[in-house]
C-alpha cells in the first residue's frame, strides 16, 4: 500500500513541477494524471500496488469533496441573497448538460445491439 501511495505521490509531484515551470495554466494534478496514463500505456498494465491505492481513493472520492464544500458556510449570505437564481442555474445546467451529452452520443454513435442497456 505504501509503495502504491508513494508512486502516486511521485506522479503528483512530477505533475506539480511540470505545471510550475513549464505549463502554469494546467493544474499540477492534471499533468500528473496525463503522466501516469502515459506510464500505464507504455507499461501495458496497471501495477497492482498503484491499482490498490488509486482505486481505493477513487471509491471514496465523495469524502474528499466534503472539506471544500463546507465552504458553503462562508458564502451563505451571498448565496441566500441569490438563492433562486443559483438553484435555477444549477438545475437547468445539470439537466441540459446530461441531456445534451447523452443525446449527442445516442445520435452519433452507431447502434450496437451488444451494448448492455438499462431496463
Amino acid at each position, binding site marked *: 500500500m505504501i509503495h502504491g501511495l508513494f508512486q*502516486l505521490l511521485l506522479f*503528483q509531484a512530477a*505533475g506539480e513541477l511540470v505545471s510550475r515551470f513549464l505549463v502554469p*495554466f*494546467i*493544474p499540477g*494534478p*492534471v499533468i*500528473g*494524471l496525463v503522466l*501516469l496514463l502515459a506510464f*500505464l500505456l507504455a507499461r501495458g498494465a*496497471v501495477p497492482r500496488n498503484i491499482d490498490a*491505492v*488509486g482505486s481505493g*481513493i*477513487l*471509491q*471514496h*472520492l*465523495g*469524502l*474528499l*469533496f*466534503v*472539506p*471544500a*464544500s*463546507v*465552504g*458553503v*458556510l462562508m*458564502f451563505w449570505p*451571498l*448565496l441566500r441573497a*441569490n438563492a433562486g*437564481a*443559483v438553484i*435555477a*442555474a*444549477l438545475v*437547468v*445546467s*445539470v*439537466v*441540459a*448538460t*446530461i441531456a*445534451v*451529452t*447523452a*443525446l449527442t*452520443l*445516442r445520435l*452519433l*454513435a452507431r447502434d450496437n445491439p451488444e*451494448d*448492455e*442497456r*438499462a431496463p
Partner: protein
Amino acid sequence: MRPDLPAIHEIWVYLAASPLLALTVTLGAYALGTSVYERTNRHPLANPVLIAVSVVSLVLIAIDMPYDTYIDGAQFVHFLLGTATVSLAIPIYKGWASLKGRVGVLLLALLAGGATSIVTAVGVLQLAGADEALALGMVAKSVTAPIAMGVAEQIQASPTLTAVFAVSTGILGAVLGRFILNGARVKPWWQRGFALGVASHGIGTSRAFSIHPQAGAYASLGMGLHGVLGAVLIPMLMAWV
C-alpha cells in the same frame, strides 16, 4: 473536581485547535452519510456527500467554529483530491481498449456537454441579474472539484465558491441523472455513464459505479477527459471572451 485535572473547557480548546476534531467530524459525517445511503438502498436523494456536508456545517455552527479553523484540520482530507485526480488515470487506462472507434463521438459529446454546462449556468444567472462573482464561480463547476478549483484560480473566480457549485452540481446530477436519461431515452450504460461523468464528475461517477460497472467506467472516463480538456480550454475561452 480535583484541582490537578484540566477543566473541561481546556480540553475543548485543545481539541478544537488540533486537526483531530475537524478530521473526526468529517470522517464521522461521511460514514453516517454512506450508511444512510446503504440503508435506503442507495436512494439518489440520500447522497452521502450531501448528508456529510450538511452534518459538518451544522456541527460547525453549533460549536461556533470558523471555517478557517475547520479547514486547517480537514486539509489533510482535502489534500488527497490531488492524488485522486492523478489516480483517474487508472479508470481511463482500463477503459482505453473499449474506446477504439468511440473516441470521436465521445469527444464531440464532451465538447457539446461542457459548452452547454457553462452557457446555461452563466446564462441563467445573467438573466436573473445575479452577482457577477456567482457567474464566474459557475464556469468550471462541471469539472471535477480539484481541477475546477485550479481552473477557478486561473480565471480569477473564487475556488471555494467553485467547489461549492461543483459539489452541488455533482449531487444534482447524481439525484436527477436517472430521470433525465430515461426522459431522453438513452439506454446503453456506456452512454448513460459518460453523460453522468461529464455533467457531474466525481459524485455522478460514484453514483454510476453503484448502479452498473460499465456506467462507472465511462463516467470516470467522462470526468477525467472533462477535467483534462476543461483545464486547458476553459482558461483559453475566458481569455478570449
